[in-house]
């Protein structure tokens, strides 16, 4: 019986490998932002 369903998310550890390009929009929050590369 499936008691745990995991929804697809971006693994934060994986994203660390990219080093951060800084092209995303500034925020005023970060949580609501999108990665500029992911948008493309």
């Amino acid at each position, binding site marked *: *019986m499936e*008691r*745990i*369903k*995991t*929804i*697809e*998310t*971006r*693994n*934060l*550890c994986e*994203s*660390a490998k*990219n*080093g*951060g390009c*800084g*092209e*995303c*929009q*500034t*925020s*005023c*929050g*970060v*949580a*609501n*932002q*999108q*990665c*500029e590369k*992911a*948008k493309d």
Partner: protein
Amino acid sequence: MIHQYQLNGYNIVLDTCSGSIHVVDEVAYALIAGYKEKPEEQLVRETLAAYGHLDGVNEAEIRACLVDIRQLEREGKLFSEDTFEPLASQFKEKNQDVIKAMCLHVAHTCNLNCSYCFASQGKYHGERALMSYEVGCRALDFLIEHSGSRRNLEVDFFGGEPLMNWEGVKQLVAYAREQEKLHNKRFRFTLTTNGMLIDDDVIDFCNREMNNVVLSLDGRKEIHDRLRVDYAGNGSYDRIVPKFQKFVAVRGDKEYYMRGTFTHANPDFTKDVFHMADLGFDRLSMEPVVCAPDDPAALTDEDIKIVLEQYEILAKEMLRRKKEGRPFIFYHYMLDLTGGPCIYKRLSGCGSGTEYVAVTPWGDLYPCHQFVGEESYKLGDIWKGITNESCREDFRSCNVYARPECRDCWARLYCSGGCAANAYHATGSIKGIYRQGCELFKKRIECAIMLQIAEKDL
């Protein structure tokens, strides 16, 4: 670190450091809660005693669920370790002197007299002034000069009321468009307005040139007109709402949002959100007022309890309206679970005082629009550059790990340490903790995650 909560019928488990989100049944919820605290045999025994009466729950099932939990732990999707601290300062060090975003204060004056205005009716505790074309051009040159390899540059036309310097705004956009071709840059412009001076020229120009417009409306007429009044004391609702509706109707698919503030007068702010949705606006934001605790507009502890409930009411109503085919967006509930910001951005926050600065009509530089007028936070000016290095260093060292309280917070990789200005105004330090803000933020993220789950209909 994990965070477990129940909302709208869902049992939700967030794994803080991987970003994984799990929706579980009550048995798994109980097992995960006790997994790190209790010996396995005790956990199995207690879970069986609590849930054994349910269909399909027996010892073998419970042990099978524990196997699944162990597997998720091995995959780094549950109880994952925080290995990010060494990265926290890298992003800002790597981009040490890069500035890519600027808040241009084109008008330190306003045609409204809102008592709760953080900018003291647009004057920022100083003199009334409009930014000249020369200062504006120099500010844009300063931004280009300090943008390094960044291609995307952002300029917010801000005030006061920026439409009181409308010809200046148009001239500066034209100048920036010339410069972006010469320097291989791309400007993204935004404008924040109270709406009083919107006309066809403003609408046409903004729909051509502004990537985003922020339209200030506090919701219901009686709420809006209570504080957003002109200098004769007359409310502005009836004058601005038709203009906003016309503006948005022809905006097409370009971004905009209605931005309201709620205060002690309306902790039941969802009524104002729904009112704006009923007016035909579908991109909405309502923010808690930030002011001194003794200000009549300040939210009390009792208000905060109401506001926390309101966030849940808002999320559920958004789901209902979406099913009915009349959805709207609430800005704090926008989460992109697969295309969100990278870990560097999450660790370093909004970039105020480092990659983002505010420029006054006189060309002075501040860490962000909310610090303008605070002399000790003046960074320098657009001619000499940043001369207050200690202030900039203070902002550079702002990250998720700068505050001991944040280290143990499950929401730290969503809030990124929060708003430095709010922390400063609440505690006197940009590295202080604005507890009221933390409480509200965590509730918003819980609701935002629940909405993602509900929309996937898990």
